[in-house]
């Protein structure tokens, strides 16, 4: 290319760039950028996408009313993490560079921590869509917030229920491959033992493992047969495990937590009869959650798949309240406002961050599959004294 043209082109670039910059800075005067580093593909996508849909709906509604805190139009920039921890850090950096003042991270601890390591030094408040490992917030620092009921809280709720049912002996099935699958059953074990139950066996699996037969044979050959099996395995491992367990003639009930409250597991029909799981709430007739479900169906064209949608929606409400309290779009002020929330009226119940290590105190709904439907058992906030330390 002749030098003259190169100069021309450089001048043209400079002009266009300058104009864009001017436009952006003008627009962002009343805008607040929310960066969403979430999985659109890969293993976390079935969890991140429903939650993100809920958040989007909340932001659309809030924007129609003048934006977050009635002041700042929320601009959501979404980037795909491909369910990969390293990729999550990459896109989180891109979002920070794009000016994100609030960061939303995937439904799992490991990628959330990788994004949090970038936002922590900058003081950008970071909320995981439905990551529930209680170690998550301490691993990052004061900018990191959980939003879903924490694993130890969920496990306590399930353990309380199992004890109340008269269950005495449990077998714990864990996988060291993720914080969720490794720790949740162990929290259950701790509460269960404290309340008079016994752990009669432990087994592990690798996520994506094709075959559970050896593990199942070990369960069958236990001298002390368990009353229930507790696991945090989720799809596609959970369907595989229960298919092979029942196929081997074992009828012991299986209990899990929030990650099996999905259409996939529900779609297994009779196979999952009696399986107990948790949710962020239950839509009783006349409840706010029921109204949300109707509104969401109108917004998205399909009914919510789980309670991840409403959880995402509540993140929007929390952000709105935090910006209102902060009275500015300063990330540090927003962070402080979220950390100070007390008895905030969400859709599923009261949400409190004040006094916690940024994993919220909020109700847990216990559910059970029966005849291909999720039936509500009860909703509770476990006693803080019962909840094991992370």
């Amino acid at each position, binding site marked *: 290319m002749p030098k003259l043209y190169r100069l021309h082109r450089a001048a043209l670039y400079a002009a266009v760039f300058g104009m864009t910059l001017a436009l952006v800075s003008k627009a962002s005067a009343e805008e607040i950028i929310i960066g969403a580093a979430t999985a659109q593909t890969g293993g976390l996508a*079935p969890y991140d996408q429903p939650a993100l849909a809920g958040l989007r709906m909340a932001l659309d509604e809030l924007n129609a009313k003048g934006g977050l805190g009635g002041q700042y139009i929320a601009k959501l920039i979404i980037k795909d993490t491909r369910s990969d921890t390293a990729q999550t850090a990459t896109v989180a950096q891109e979002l920070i560079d794009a000016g994100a003042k609030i960061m939303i991270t995937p439904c799992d601890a490991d990628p959330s921590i990788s994004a949090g390591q970038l936002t922590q030094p900058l003081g950008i408040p970071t909320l995981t869509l439905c990551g529930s490992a209680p170690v998550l917030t301490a691993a990052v620092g004061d900018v990191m917030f959980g939003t879903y009921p924490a694993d130890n809280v969920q496990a306590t709720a399930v353990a309380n229920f199992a004890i109340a049912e008269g269950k005495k002996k449990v077998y714990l099935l864990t996988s060291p491959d993720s914080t969720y699958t490794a720790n949740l059953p162990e929290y259950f074990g701790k509460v269960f033992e404290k309340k008079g139950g016994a752990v009669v066996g432990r087994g592990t699996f690798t996520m994506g493992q094709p075959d559970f*037969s050896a593990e199942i044979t070990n369960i069958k050959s236990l001298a002390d047969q368990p009353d229930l099996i507790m696991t945090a395995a989720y799809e596609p491992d959970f369907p595989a495990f229960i298919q092979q367990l029942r196929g081997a*003639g074992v009828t012991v009930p299986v209990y899990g937590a929030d990650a099996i409250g999905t259409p996939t597991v529900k779609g297994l029909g009779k196979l999952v009869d009696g399986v107990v799981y948790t949710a962020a709430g239950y839509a009783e007739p006349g409840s706010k959650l029921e109204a949300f479900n109707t509104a969401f169906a109108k917004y998205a064209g399909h009914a919510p798949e789980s309670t991840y949608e409403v959880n995402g929606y509540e993140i929007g409400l929390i952000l709105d309240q935090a910006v209102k309290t902060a009275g500015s779009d300063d990330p540090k002020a927003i962070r402080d406002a979220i950390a100070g929330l007390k008895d905030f009226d969400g859709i599923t119940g009261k949400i409190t961050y004040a006094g916690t290590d940024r994993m919220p105190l909020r109700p847990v709904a216990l559910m059970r599959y029966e005849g291909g439907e999720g039936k509500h058992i009860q909703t509770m906030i476990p006693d803080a004294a019962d909840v094991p330390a992370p």
Partner: protein
Amino acid sequence: MIAQQIINAVSLGGVYALLALGLAIVFSIVGLINFAHGELMTLSGYALLAALVFGLPFPAAVLVAVSCGALAAVAMERVAFRPMRGASVTSLLLTSFAVSSLLKVVFQNGISARPQPVAMPGWMTGAFSFGDFTIGVGPSISIVVSALALIALELFLRRTVTGTAMRAAAEDFNVVRLMGIPASRIIATAFLLSGLLAGLAAMLWVAQRASVDPLMGFTPVLKAFIAAVVGGLGSLPGAVAGGFLLGIIEVLLQATLPAAVAPYRDAIVLSGVIAVLLVRPQGLIPAVRVQRS
């Protein structure tokens, strides 16, 4: 309990053998390790789901699904691999990776990122007892189907002209062509067989896992690759031996390792593979011609 674990091992080994055989057939003829083999399984799984949704009775749905796998394999050869014929092993390998990634994205965006439940008929989760131990219907079917498929393949390769030509092609393709056998027919048949095996393996896989997801082909193709390498790349008896060996080692380790060491199971299995290859670098039962093209 030991008898039970042996059944578990044979059942898993059978599925691995079918998968490894599917890879080995294609490799023995065209020198391609088809990493999109797993996506043929995924495709068969979705075909099964679709057939069930459309109300076909279960046996018919299985038939449709397996045929879909076979046809997809032939189509894959026609579209992606035929233009690459004669290319280097590396180019073929990369092409297969490309096909695999492409199909995964198509499944994720076209169907759903979420695993789809496949409700197996009730009798599949049944079990029957012999005195002390119970055998699940699922594992029994796995063992019987794998055995039948292996016998049928053996008969096809020994007793038919195309089968004989394929065995000959695995040893020296050029001589086979000089004998007047069209190369395209041999290659298409190799893909058809590998697709059939993928379809069958997919049915056994889905029967044990009760769901189909876009990424489900990854683990099986990896296991099949390991089995094929251990057995001797390109050798059909080797693939079967490698598949069974891998299945047996995995189940035995899972059954016997103490909880503290259990997470290292895959690492131990792969160390075992390295050990086997150190002693027998060409695999357990080496192919007559190890490296083609």
